[in-house]
Every structure is written in C-alpha cells, then in structure tokens.
C-alpha cells in the first residue's frame, strides 16, 4: 500500500538532489538539471521579541556578509561540511526547496543530499531531519566522493579503481572507488574556507589590514594559485588599516597568496598521499594509468592539478565543471535510484 502511494506521489513530485555545501548549495531537479546555485548564507534578523526572522538567503544574504548592523546576522549555517546551525540550515533548505518546487506544494519532494564521508551519525541525522522538516517526503544521503565520481561520469561500476579528490568549501574528500563502493576514503576538514581564513590572516599580519571573508574569497578566486604561475598576478585589496583605523588599499601578489595558502594546499596533498598509501596494490596499479580526478570548487585553484601531478607523479584530470560535479552526480543517483540505491547510505 505504501509502495503504491509512493508510486502515485512519485508521479507528481519533483525529486530534488541537493549539494548542501559549506560554501555553495546547488539544487538539481529531476529531469531539469541544476536549477539553483547559491551561497550557503542566511541573513537573519532578530525581531523585537528576540525571535530570528530569515531576512535573505543565498546571494542576497552573501552580499550582507560582514556588512550587517547589530540586529541582523549573516550566518553560514554549514561549517566543515556539516551542519553547524540546525535551524538556520532548515530555513535555508526550506527556502531553496520552495524556490524550485513552488508550484507543487501538495506533494512533498524526495530529496537526496550528499554528505562528507566519515561524518558522525549525529551529523547525518541532523542533515536528514533538517531536510525532513524543510518539507522532504523522503531523504536519501549519498557520500560526496561517490556523488562526485558519478557526476564526473567515472566508470564506478567497473572493477577498476577511480580516485576522486573533491575539494569543497569545508572539506576535502579523497576516495578510491571500485565496483560502486568506496574502497578507501579520507575526509580532511580543509577547503576553500580555510584558504580564505589563511588569506585574511596573512593580510592582517603582513599589512596590518583587516579584510572581510568576501574580500578574502575574491582574492582566492582571482589570484590564488598552488603552483608558481608564469606571469605572477597582483590584485588591489581594500580593507581597514589596523593601526590607523582608516580604510585603505593595498596591492597583493599571487606569490604571497600562494605562500599564505600553502599550509592548506599541503594538507590536501598530504591527504591524497595518504590515500594512495592506503590503497590496495591492485587498485593502486590502476590509478597509475588513470590518475586522479579533481572535482569541487577547490579544483579551480590555479596550479593545483600541476602541484598534485608533481607531488604524486600521476596524471591529474580536472573535470569540466568542478562546481557542479557533486550535485550532478547526486541528481544522477536520484534519477537512477533503483540502480544506485546501493551507493546511498543510511
């Protein structure tokens, strides 16, 4: 009976795949593709009674980040790949779901969400429950590297190994996948956010200047690199001088940024190295031929593929659209749920 009901509801519901990332949230609608990609930021306002009212979500909220008066807070509810603020995450999910699912309120969607490998049961539960209370009929979880591999069209069902490195905002996932299963995975809580922090710290130390998260991210996107660039670049950065307290401009070069984020890059490389060490020899042999696939926003860091190539002596492939790989994979898993159910986790 429940099955029939589910089938009937399934005809009317628009199933969603969500990449609930630390930096960006992507929503994929079954049969439509990616319909939404917005920063995981929520601006909340405290009303007179002390309740939090959601003011803006996504791009609008991100513009408020660091520019809010006392009663408004721009919050990033995800930290290190997991939910840091349950209620805000729920509000954000609800907003995104209603945005893409507006005309079909009657039937609640089935939602597949990807989560980092190695998150605790509590963290999994938090994701599931926040999605359920945000209006999901059923929630499936899939591990991020698996979603990334599916999204990158890797031959995951073959008995050969595929190594995926997914560098997100909060976490870096390294996984070796074979026969639709994860042979080895490692998740390090280093990602784009940590690089932003490192850049902020560097600017503060070297130039005695405070810059916001958004400025730091801008620097990272525009000039940061992991490997020496041929013509080194520079960028004008605006911020507040710590000594005089007066806003000012400085010029920052790609070389110093590279040094600033080297610690984070190094831990990513280290994670890959450890993963390679832990891979069973037969699968390691396959990796020599095929190399490593880089996905996630971190894959866009200039020179990271070259650095990994040098460090691991393996061919590195960066997928065409690293930012959407995970959500596309999650969507594919949702489309072929009956086949790929085995890749889902509880």
């Amino acid at each position, binding site marked *: 009976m429940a099955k029939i009901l589910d089938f009937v509801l399934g005809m009317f519901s628009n199933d969603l795949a969500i990449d609930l990332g630390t930096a960006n949230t992507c929503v994929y609608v079954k*049969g439509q593709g990616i319909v939404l990609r917005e920063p995981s930021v929520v601006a909340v306002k405290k009303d007179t009674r002390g309740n939090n009212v959601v003011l803006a979500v996504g791009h609008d909220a991100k513009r408020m980040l660091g520019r809010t008066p006392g009663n408004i807070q721009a919050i990033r509810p995800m930290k290190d790949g997991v939910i840091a603020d349950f209620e805000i995450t729920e509000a954000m999910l609800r907003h995104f779901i209603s945005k893409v699912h507006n005309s079909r309120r009657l039937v609640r969607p089935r939602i597949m969400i990807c989560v980092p490998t190695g998150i605790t049961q509590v963290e999994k539960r938090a994701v599931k429950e926040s999605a359920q209370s945000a209006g999901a009929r059923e929630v499936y979880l899939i591990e991020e590297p698996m979603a990334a591999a599916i999204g990158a069209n890797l*031959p995951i069902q073959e008995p050969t190994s595929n190594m995926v490195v997914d560098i997100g905002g909060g976490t870096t996932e390294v996984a070796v996948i074979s026969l639709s299963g994860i042979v080895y995975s490692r998740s390090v809580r280093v990602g784009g956010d940590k690089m932003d922090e490192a850049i902020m710290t560097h600017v503060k130390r070297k130039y005695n200047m405070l810059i916001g998260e958004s400025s730091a991210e801008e620097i990272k996107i525009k000039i940061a690199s992991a490997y020496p660039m041929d013509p080194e670049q520079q960028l004008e950065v605006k911020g507040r001088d710590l000594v005089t307290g007066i806003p000012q401009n400085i010029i920052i070069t790609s070389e110093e940024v590279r040094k600033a984020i080297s610690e984070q890059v190094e831990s990513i490389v280290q994670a890959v190295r450890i993963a390679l060490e832990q891979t069973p020899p037969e699968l390691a042999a396959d990796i020599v*031929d095929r*190399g490593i*696939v880089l996905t996630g926003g971190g894959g866009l860091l200039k020179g990271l593929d070259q650095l990994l*190539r040098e460090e691991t002596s393996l*061919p*590195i*492939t960066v997928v065409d659209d690293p930012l959407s790989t995970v959500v596309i994979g999650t969507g594919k898993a949702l489309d072929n749920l009956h086949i790929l159910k085995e890749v889902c986790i509880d």
Partner: protein
Amino acid sequence: MALKELGIALREAREAKNLDIGDVAIRIKVSARVLRAIEDGERDGLPHAVYARGFIKSYAALLGVDNDLVMRAVDEAYPFEVPEELLPETVAAQPPARARTGLSPVVLALAALVLLAALGGGWYYRQQSTREAEVPKVAQPAQATQPVPPVAPVAPVEAEAQPASAADAAPLVNATVPAAMSGATGVAANATNAPAATSSAPVGQPARNATAPVAAAASASTAPAPAAVASVTPAPPAPAQASAPSGAPQGGVFDSEAAAGEGADTDGSVLAGGTHRIVVIALADCWVHSSADDSDVRQFSLHKGQTFALTFTKRLTLKLGNAGGVRIRYNGQEQPAPGESGQVRTLVFPPQAQ
C-alpha cells in the same frame, strides 16, 4: 575535427616545440603509451572517456594548442560523456525517463476518470435540479397563455340548480354555502350523481355552472346569500382573481377561489392558436400525471378543492390516480366522470385521439 586529426595536430605541435613523447610523459605524468594512442587517434589505446578527455586537455594545454579547438574535437570524439558502464543500465533505467512518458497514459486515464466523474456529477445535478424545478416551471405555460379574465357576466344559476344533489355536494365546497348555491356546485361537481344534466347541457353552460358555484362559494363567506344573489356576486371576486394569475406565478393549481376567475374565461371552446385547455377540478385528493404534446411532462397532487389548468396544442395524456375525485373540463366543456373513486385512469385529449 576527429580524434585522428586532433592527434596529428598535437603531434605537429609537439614536434614544433621540439619535445619527444618521453618529455611530455614526464611533464604531464601521462604514460607514453597513452600519449601515443592520443597522437595516433586510437580510441582502443585510451582509457575511459573521462580520463581520455582529461589527458588530451592537459596535453593540449602543455603544447599551447588552441583550447577551444581541442575541446570541440574532444566533444566530438566523446559526444555524450555517458560512461559505457552506465549506458546499459541507463537504457534499462529509462523507466525514470520513460516513466515520464510511460506514466502519462496512467495520468491521462486518471484525468479521464476525473473528467467523467465530473461530467456524471454535473448531469446528475442537472437532473436533480430540473426535477425540483419541474413543478413550478411546467405550471407556468398554463398561466402564460391565460389572458386576464374579463369580468364575465355570470349566467343565471337557478336553471342548473339541482336540489337533488345539493345535499351531498354542499359539504364538498363549503359548509356555509346556502342551499341554492351549493346546489349549483352540485351540478358541476357531482358529475357522477347527475350525468344527464351535464351531458345535456349546452356547451357554454357547464362552464358557467362551474364558475358560478365556485365563485359563489368564494364569496359565500363574505356574503352568504340566496341563489338569486349568487348569480350576481361572482362579479366582485373576479377582478381579484384576474390579477392573481397574471401577477403571481403560483402554478396551475388554484384553490377553488382562483378557479372562479379561470372558469369565467374558459368560455370559448378552443383557445386562440389551436390550443386546447383542460381544467382539472379536484373533488378529493388526486395524483395527476400529465404529458402535454408528448413533451411537457409533469406530475403533481391536487388537493380537495384545487383546480389545475393545462393547455396543449396537439395531444394531452392525463393519468389520474383517483379518477372519481376529479372533474374535468375540456375546452370549457364538462367531461363525463373519468372513473370511480380510487380508480386509476389514463385519459387522452382530444378524445378522438384515443
């Protein structure tokens, strides 16, 4: 640009840069075997599509070959990046995709069902509502065709006064009616008791007979008068009735009071336009079913003392539940009693159509 041409272009670019395969292999860490396969355009020697794309891209990037050109060639070589492993399943997994088109018949069937149910419901509702509206609605034609009855001079009543039947007819109409008047009623109402009198009466007479007593009965309460007066008294109540049928669409069923006005104008044998007119006067409660011109079907119950007027052009079928309880006037002409009390009879008008 096919894979082969791309391979040739890459080889040329590499040779122009004075690099050999080994150098390239060291730089991009792709094995020389795979690089050779790329240059020869041998698909068999290349790894899985995703990796091959990546290798070609990094090779082209190293050599500084136009990226767009390479990307187009790669896209051509690997048109849809559907992994072969997933392909059979994706075809088998078409159900989700096909489910959309495949399910649509189900959705269509459901929609059709809902539509049918809606139509059926609508039809039933219409049926119900017409049935409810039937009685008031069908009663109207009789009224519509009815001209405002002029105050007709009422014929002398004394000629028809039949003292013999007065006794049993009187209680039917009004207990307070004086003897002469109730006698007049008796003639008309009591068709069973005195068939001879009605049948032998001239065409115009019975109508007056009927009107006179009823009108008299109506006026009786206000002016209990002897028979001689009764013939004159109908005049005042008549105008009152005249306005009633024209103004108030009360239906064809009237009290005996209303019948006075009606009866007065049913003088003409056949109404204008070839319409026939039937007046049913109930002496006792009677269920009536009428079908005028085979289209205007109505059924109703007449209570004692009520009068019902019907018009039709061609044919009228009248079914009476209590044939003895009614008196029928057809085109102003008193008809013989349709039957015994409690008898069910079906009458057809005009009579020759029987």
